[in-house]
């Protein structure tokens, strides 16, 4: 792609990353959440493919797959955290640790919910990202 696209991509990537992280982080407070934020993050991968070509990202594919796996694993493990009461029980809520705040509407409240948002966000980012990447790699002609 042209130098214009590459330059704009370089500028846009950090912004998109921050916006995606914001959507995930505020998932328990505002519209959005893990899936939506993850999709925004995956758009970064799409943007990079458009600007620089899929070949340059080929090496990243295995790490994306691992991140997706980690996200899914993190989600199940977080569900297991509450097994003292029941599976999926929000054991961290109100516990005064990380995300253990008691004030409604606070970023640091919500217990395991914000953490689960991060798990879903990572999984969706890596999953959608590797789908887009694989389609670009094996989809035949990309115009460069």
């Amino acid at each position: 792609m042209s130098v214009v696209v590459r330059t704009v991509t370089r500028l846009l990537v950090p912004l998109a990353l921050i916006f995606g992280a914001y959507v995930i982080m505020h998932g328990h407070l505002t519209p959005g959440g893990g899936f939506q934020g993850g999709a925004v993050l995956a758009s970064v991968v799409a943007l990079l493919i458009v600007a620089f070509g899929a070949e340059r990202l080929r090496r990243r594919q295995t790490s994306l797959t691992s991140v997706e796996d980690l996200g899914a694993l993190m989600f199940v493990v977080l569900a297991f955290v509450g097994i003292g009461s029941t599976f999926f029980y929000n054991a961290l809520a109100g516990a005064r640790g990380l995300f253990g705040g008691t004030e409604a509407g606070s970023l640091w409240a919500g217990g395991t919910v914000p953490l689960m948002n991060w798990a879903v966000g990572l999984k969706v980012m890596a999953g959608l990202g590797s789908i887009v990447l694989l389609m670009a790699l094996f989809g035949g002609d990309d115009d460069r």
Partner: protein
Amino acid sequence: MNLATHVPILAIAVPLLGAFALPLLAKVHRSLRDLWVLLVGAFTVAMLVLLAVQVFTGGILVYTLGAGTPGDTVPEGFPIRIMLVVDGMGAFMGLIAALVGIAGLAYALQYLEEEKGKTLALTLMLLLWAGMLGLKLTGDLFNFFVFFEITSVAACGLIGYRVWESRPPEAAFKTMVMYTLGGLLILLAVGILYGEYGALNLAYLSAQIGQGPLDQIALGLLLGGLLMKAGSVPMHMWAPDAYGEADPSTAIVLVANTQAALYGLFRIVFTLYGGAGSPAVGGLVTALGALTVIVAVLMAVLQTDLGRLIAYGAVSQIGYMLLGAGVGMATLGAAAGGEAGFGLVALQGGVFHMMNDAACIGLLFLCVGAVVRATGARDLRALGGLGHSLPGVSGLFLLGSLALAGIPPLNGFASKLMIYQAAFRLSPILTALAVLASILLLAVFVRAFQGVFLGPRRPLGGTAAVPTGMWLAMGLLAVVVVAFGLVPDLMVRHVVAPAAEALWTGREAYLVAVLGG
């Protein structure tokens, strides 16, 4: 933490955790991955057996996710949380899943080849197992749909992951189309019911549901979606491709997965709708069952590919289960007026046949795997004389085919006899068709056995040695085939009867267990 109270969720969560951790462990070392698979499999089987013991001795188990205690089902009088409800039928299906799951995993560990996507296939198998168990244990209609989709995606991945061959991806695509269509029908029904009653808890819906046109539309959609996934005859075209092209270890889990769809059908008709629409629904299911039995067998006669031949046999067995359950559904309304008896026997026969089919069809698929390993071929015309080099496998194949055709004293006979007797009371034609299909099935399998195992010795294209894991898996299923055939009374009285009873008269108990008295 008290393990016993968490048994229902552990049976689903552990294989799920196992599936997600497996690719990461495989990156560390392959032997670690294999150990992990065995560990997860053994733990899940232990949980399922424990669950069955608890349910058969102590009645329905309810587990509410995310609540302060598992029994907190209706906070503020409304069942808002996701919950698992395990009655006799759910526990029985759990036992089937345990049997095929552990046999499939043990077989897959040694059958699959390292450079041909072994890690991928094992991951998807654990995921399919977890989805199947969720489908069987959940007490929430939307969760039911979610697990339905998990099994669909995992199953299609497992069928088609060997992209370097031409036929598996095609079979996977066909299956995907049918599963997605079925899933959409179910989602539409879920939407209708949610719009009408504002809840998706099965017990709550069951207490509210009526006979209005919307309820009947939803029932029709649910029936359509589930019959599609079960592979009943007008919607069966995906099944022979899927079973035939998948790895043998996958095929046996897929058979159990179609039975999970049948379980969903029974749950919807008996528990959710409480026999509403009987005898019309029962008549429809019976007719489809009879059609499935006969059409699938006639198709099996024509096959020359060993995998597809057994696949059509598997489809015809689904017909027997539909037949048994359909006769039960058709007489459920009359049963309330005092004329019980043969409907319940038919239902018991159908339920019992699920377990028997899982064992004997599973055994046949696993034998095909050993044949393919030894020769690299599945075409009946190219095979022959394998009895010389694979005597054990040929014996097990014969055992499986005799059981499938319903020859006493093997397990297929026990359940088929119950279906024959009860269906005869509804209409003798049904029994005549079912017996005819069994005879044809025997002919088909005698021909297959003769073609593959008898005759002069021929040169092999592969290795005839069967590793221990594969023997263990085949041996486990063979033991079930023989044992259930020798002591069917014991099985029916202690395991099958409580399962059928849970559907037949257990609706009240199901509602009370969730919603309270």
